């Protein structure tokens, strides 16, 4: 009840759902992830921002799909490689992210966290909260709210 404890602190560990995108490993907080779908048919939306891949039918619900490669300023996904759809729920609304492939859910510790590496450039950098140094691999923590770019 006391206001003194109201200061927000980063939890010592958290869980990230991870996925691959253009050779890099990314992660989003598990609590945002609603589900992961494979090969959805996507209805394109002409004249929409480039990052909007289109609309998908999620059990009768129409959900916007964001092409994360485009959003992060990466090169388009090679022909023939199917995207995996990660449905995230933000403020009660479902949005989906197109990624290359899904990886594990990993526990990450705050002490491994660092600001975005300087090697990341422009567009992508704003959408990355930072990097977790896993053994043998960097895990880039995606800022989901920014990534869906509302």
């Amino acid at each position, binding site marked *: 009840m006391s206001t003194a404890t109201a200061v927000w602190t980063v939890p010592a560990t958290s869980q990230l759902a991870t996925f691959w995108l253009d050779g890099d490993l990314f992660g989003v907080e598990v609590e945002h992830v609603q589900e992961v779908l494979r090969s959805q048919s996507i209805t394109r*939306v*002409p004249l929409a921002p480039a990052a*909007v891949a289109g609309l998908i*039918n999620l059990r*009768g619900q129409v959900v*916007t799909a964001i092409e994360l490669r485009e959003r992060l300023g990466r090169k388009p996904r090679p022909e023939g490689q199917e995207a995996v759809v990660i449905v995230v729920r933000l403020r009660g*609304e479902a949005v989906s992210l197109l990624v290359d492939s899904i990886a594990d859910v990993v526990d990450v510790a705050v002490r491994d966290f660092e600001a975005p590496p300087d090697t990341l450039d422009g567009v992508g950098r704003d959408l990355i909260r930072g990097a977790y140094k896993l053994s043998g691999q960097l895990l880039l923590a995606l800022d989901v709210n920014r990534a869906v*770019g*509302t």
Partner: protein
Amino acid sequence: MEGLDDIVEEFLVESHENLDQLDQDLVALEQDPRSRERLSSIFRTIHTIKGTSGFLAFNKLEEVAHVGENLLSRMRDGALDLTPSRTSALLLMTDTIRALLAEIEASSGEGAVPVAETVVVLSAALDDAPTQAATEAAAEAAVVAAAAVVEAEAAVLAAETVVAPPVPAPVKKAAAAKKAPAKRASRAKAAVPPPAPVPSVERVPVPTPSVAPPAPAAAVQQETPVAEVPVVEAPAAPAALAPEPGTPEAQPKSRGVADSTIRVDVDLLDNLMLLVGELVLTRNQIVQYVGRQNDQDLIRASQRLNLIASELQESAMKTRMQPIDHIWSKLPRVVRDLGLQCGKAVRLEMEGKDTELDKTLLEAVKDPLTHLVRNSVDHGIEDTAARAAAGKPAEGVLTLRSRHESGQVVVEVADDGAGIDPVKIGRKAVEKGLITADALTRMSPQDLLQLIFLPGFSTAAAVTNVSGRGVGMDVVKTNIEGIGGTIEVESVAGRGTCMRLRIPLTLAIVPALTIECSGDRYAIPQISLQELVALDAEKAAAAVEDVGGASVYRLRGELLPLVHLADVLGLPSDRHDGHVVIAVLSSEGRRFGLVVDRVINTEEIVVKAVSGQLKQIGLYSGATVLGDGAVALILDVQALARRALRTETTDRQEHRLAAAAAAATVTERQRMLLAAIGGGRRVAIPLDTVTRLEQVRSDTVERVGSREVVQYRGAILPIVRLDRHLGAFGDSDREVLEVIVYADHGRSVAIVVEEILDIVDGEAAVQSDIDDLGLLGSAVIGDRVTELLDVRAAILAADPAFYSPVPASGPAGLGGPTDLDPGAFGFEGSTRPSAHPTTHLMEV
């Protein structure tokens, strides 16, 4: 119940509900006398009843509620404690209120229900009397309560027992009791202090409360907390004795107001609507799938599903419907006050108060409508002097009209005022920098009228506190478009102005046309669709012309500006064979043709919102899930029109209208409805004789003598089966019949065909005069030999008296042949409506 107006009825329903709650609260309160929450709830209920009854001039009710409220307010403030005697007094009050309500329901008046005792008891409870007095009061209360019950029951018994009623009231009360539904009757009894029923019968003759022994009072005090237990037999007794009140068979006849309606959470209805929406989608999916199958049973089952889903959808929609009067009822006051303020005499007339529309839409329309009405009074109608000068009656007339029209609700706000002067509008617009003077010279009067919808436009010479601050018509327009509606303005200078709103019946499910462009499907709400035109390469090359870089099409001699959807979307069209498919759309009083790759279907679609960033594009009003599960974007026709059209186009339309009026009398092109009648035969029927296309269930077909008839809109419609009439052998055991309704001079007949195929221009037909029974000849239409139906003969086959003089009481309810715009939904070439949505497509 006929005598009750809406307000009283609403009051009764509400009060009955509240009283039920009150009983529970009171009993619960005894258990927990400190619960301020319950006390407040009780107080509110009584307060509301008092207020409303005062307003409705139910004086006795007000009196009782008033004393009760005093008592409750003191208890709520903590000045008085809740004693059992006070509880009894309050319960007595509840019963008296109930009796009064029942009487009001039965006779629209308070009748002779006695209230004096109740008031005395309540007043006594109000006095902070010493314990003894309180006991006495309680005793009194109990007895009076008992007496009240006695009265009620005595009344029921009155027929058999020779008890002289103490007051004339019971007779009235008995009537009330009969009307009251069983449930409430028993509840009323339940509220009565427990010892009442049994002893009461014996104590009927007891003339005054003071004689009553104190004993029952004590019983009251102890037993009230567990009121439910002894009550069990209480309602049973009177029910057994009196045949009417409790017996189930009597109930439907005299269902009280409170029982004929239930209150439902709007969320629940929303959810229901959502589910129905999903069901409709699934239905579409199944119908589409079954269309490719040959299994007869499956086809039949899917047809049934189709019909039931439609009916369910309609019923679910109806639960959310409210008459427009809900928002209109506040307008007479608005008009009156405003009229006085502006020094104008205005009479408000309303037509079509009962027109119903979705509650959400009703809410959304309320403000725009009020704004339009205020505008009309403020700007439209002139002051008395000006009217006199113009030779008009001193009193201006503002007319509100509403009606259903082809799946939409049309609401008009019309005045007989000065009208809008296009010249003034134009000048003003230039002054405000909304258009250039150069543009002004090129605008038609109709275009100029549209300027009033521009943001920042107001014509009032002076800013009044009523309107004229520049927020106005643009907001109205935005709001109406926000709910998928449209607004049109018509005005004749000196004669008046009419603002016409077209609002969809419901937001959730709308009929739409699905089209394809560049490999993707899009939905166009039917509300803006006027007709479809398909041109083959040869025709298109001749009929689609370039005017200064803009392509136009000559639609029945008038120029229709064309918008290529593929260009607007920035996609390559995948139609390379030169065929042109045009959806003729109307927006804001203008017509334009949207060129698409192909027309797929008409479907009922469930509108889903799209995210903000997609809405911003300004081309899509939403998205939907199609029958096959794919997502399709819904095109925003208004936005399309604004994006693609230049203002000059209405110029041509003005011209076109004038020309059309002149031309209509000269050349009458024959448009034909093509129908299959079975056995591979096709018949053409002149479209101008067709009133409507319908689907009827074959099990609704009845026989009158040797003829078949069907009930249709409250009339009997004779049927002629074209396959039999023309000696073809159709598939006669179909579950759904495709019917062409033909009406003339108040009579109508139904012509049953196997399938509606197409609408074509009869002009190109090569005629031959090989004729047969019932035929006028034959022609080649769309590469196939098609028989021309002798409509007169077919109709006479159904109704030999059709062309004889009109019977005085002929089947009404059908419009003339003008119901169907002959030009509407002309399908040519390969495009044609599928069987299911035909009705929607054709009902214009």
